[in-house]
């Protein structure tokens, strides 16, 4: 075990009375002792995490290696039990007759992510910049900007479905007869619009938090140096707000990769232009084929983990706030930072 000393500086106030046994030892607790105590105190959390995250994840992965028997027996009943099929569920996804549907869904999911998140970043940062400036009713504006985010997604999907009806407001304003909910490109854009409306405020609010940390002196210095608004934005504001923005973008990306309720409620099932990977998993589970459903869910999980790792390692998304870490510590901490990402990913894990 590593022999790094943990130096605890004794502070002026005396330790409180009635201390637990560990405190009665010398103020400099041995690394072994504090490690044991840490493990003990953390174990309830780990048990809960194990039950709520790791168990469904592993259970789904296990489920994806089995299949239910096909067909009925002579008396017309479905056979019971599971058959071990190994990775056949996965190879069928990639090479079977549903491969087209899988790649279409994969493409849709990725395209939704790229399009939606890009537009949301632009709109969100613009919102944040506007909200940052002092104005009348600042508190009200900031609270009301979160209203779309507060509405449950399924409800907002119904609202937008109503707006995007053929006789609805969207067509009335545009003076067109676009069939928004029918198959085609327009369904894709309908989902992007609804999603952006709902979640741009989320990026806006997180970016606003990042903006407020920047001290005013930096801007003053920039003004003294003669920088115009555009240069100030690109070379001062954006780099300084990057940590907050990256965290917001990471969460949004993970959310859109898992998107299910918006296209499902707004456009409907089995529509190729908006079908996402989650919808595929749901469709298989709906038809009581839990093995393939778990396989789709596991693939989605792996996709999301890869994207999260890319964000954390390459782009340096600072998920648990350790911006001042040294490079060596960043490497050691990679394991820890992917755990919170796993918390976020876990809801895409099990399908049962």
């Amino acid at each position: 075990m590593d022999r790094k000393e943990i130096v605890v500086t004794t502070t002026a106030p005396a330790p409180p009375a009635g201390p637990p046994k560990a405190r009665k030892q010398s103020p400099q607790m041995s690394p072994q002792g504090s490690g044991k105590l840490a493990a003990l105190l953390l174990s309830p959390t780990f048990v809960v995490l194990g039950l709520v995250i790791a168990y469904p994840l592993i259970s789904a992965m296990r489920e994806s290696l089995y299949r239910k028997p096909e067909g009925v027996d002579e008396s017309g009943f479905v056979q019971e039990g599971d058959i071990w099929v190994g990775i056949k569920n996965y190879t069928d996804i990639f090479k079977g007759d549903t491969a087209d549907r899988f790649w279409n869904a994969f493409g849709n999911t990725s395209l939704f992510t790229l399009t939606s998140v890009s537009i949301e970043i632009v709109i969100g940062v613009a919102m944040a910049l506007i909200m940052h400036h002092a104005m009348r009713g600042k508190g009200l504006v900031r609270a009301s900007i979160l209203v779309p985010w507060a509405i449950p997604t399924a409800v907002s999907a119904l609202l937008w479905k109503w707006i995007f009806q053929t006789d609805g407001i969207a067509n009335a304003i545009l003076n067109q007869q676009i069939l928004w909910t029918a198959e085609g490109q327009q369904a894709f854009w309908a989902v992007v619009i609804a999603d952006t409306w709902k979640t741009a405020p989320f990026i806006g609010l997180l970016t606003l938090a990042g903006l407020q940390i920047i001290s005013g002196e930096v801007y003053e210095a920039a003004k003294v140096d003669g920088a115009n608004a555009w240069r100030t934005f690109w070379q001062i504001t954006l780099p300084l707000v990057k940590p907050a923005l990256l965290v917001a973008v990471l969460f949004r990306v993970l959310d859109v990769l898992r998107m299910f309720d918006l296209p499902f409620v707004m456009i409907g099932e089995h529509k190729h232009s908006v079908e996402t990977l989650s919808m595929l998993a749901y469709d298989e589970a709906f038809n009581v084929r839990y093995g393939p459903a778990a396989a789709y869910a596991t693939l989605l999980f792996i996709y999301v983990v890869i994207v999260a790792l890319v964000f954390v390692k390459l782009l340096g998304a600072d998920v648990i706030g350790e911006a001042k870490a040294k490079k060596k510590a960043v490497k050691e901490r990679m394991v820890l930072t992917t755990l919170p990402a796993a918390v976020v990913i876990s809801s895409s894990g099990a399908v049962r």
Partner: protein
Amino acid sequence: MTVRARAWRGAVVLAAAALLAACGNDSGTPSSGNSGGGAPALDGTGDFTFATGKDTSNNMQKLADKWNADNPNEKVRIVELPESADGQRQQMVQNAQVKSDAFTVLNLDVVWTAEFAANKWVVELPQDQFKLSEFLQPAVDTAKYRDKLYAVPVYSDGGMLYYRKDLLDKVGVQAPKTWADLTAACLKVKALPEAANMSCYAGQFEKYEGLTVNFAEAVQSAGGVIVNKDGKPDVNTAAAKTGLDTLVQGFKTGAIPQKAITYKEEDGRRAFQAGELLFHRQWPYAYAKAQQNDGSSQIVGKFDVAPLPGVTGPGSSSLGGHNFAISAFAKNKASALKFIQFFTSEENERSNLLATSQAPTRTSLYEDAQLIKQFPYLATLKASILSAVPRPKAVKYGDVTAAIQENAYGALTGTKTTDAALKDLQTKLEELVK
């Protein structure tokens, strides 16, 4: 301890917890189910539950209260499931997967009988406990799987052709019996100034179960079938092509408005009530709604119903409706059986008809003079149900309907030719319906 060591320790604890929990899973080898030789006796008396979709008329609750008053030791509690059929099925399937006794009596859609029976989620019912001859035979047929009774028909449903009687009278045309008559009538009516902006016809063409119904009716109207008498798929025929082409041509020529591709039942009903459609294929529930005097309908007293049109003569509708079954995992199955007998008695079916205007399953109610006076469409409805053809009976009905929707929608939107659509559908159905 370093951060890294601590992290690995944590991961090991997590994995251990997960493995411990995962250890409890069984994975049995597949076993064939027991061959049922005659319905097993249903036993168990006591309180039970009734799982059903939204009770819009509140009549189910009234009947449940009546039952509870007479049977204080065998009380029923209504468990309301989601409004959509898919939502209800999902809840019932999940309940069956965990073998829970939470639901006793299940309100099944007619197309789920095969699936629920083959998966042993519902029990066989004793045929001698019900006078099945008093019920409409097509409805009874939907409740059977391999000639054994698994459910009792309670509500039935058949599609009818709603039409604007006032406009047809103006041009002196009777209700059309064939598609050709329908197109001719439409041309005549559109010459009238007040009908210039109307569309001819709409049904339910969105990509959902309603599309399967409309596709089946189109194919049937031309004399084709989706699944033949022996239960084998036979949809790649000239007759089916004629039927599907009727709809495809309707979209191409504008007789069916473009936006009808997004229509479910309510969208079409609203369009018909607003006076945008001359002819509309719809279920009977819309009759009462279109007659309401609260301002929601522009066509009160101006419409009537007729049997669906065919190619050479009248067409046939797709059979809809609901049956009551008993969950295999419930206790108190004997009480549930008595409750189903109670619900399907003549008196209670009459009360259902009066409250919801949904088609009853007892033949006698269609011949009652007083009911005919109150529901003038009863005769058309009875004819529709008696000539109705059920949708394909398959254990994997979800896949069957998905395949039909995929190909029909492709043909209607023009992304597939009708030949390709029917050929692909035949191939897919041959895999699914064995």
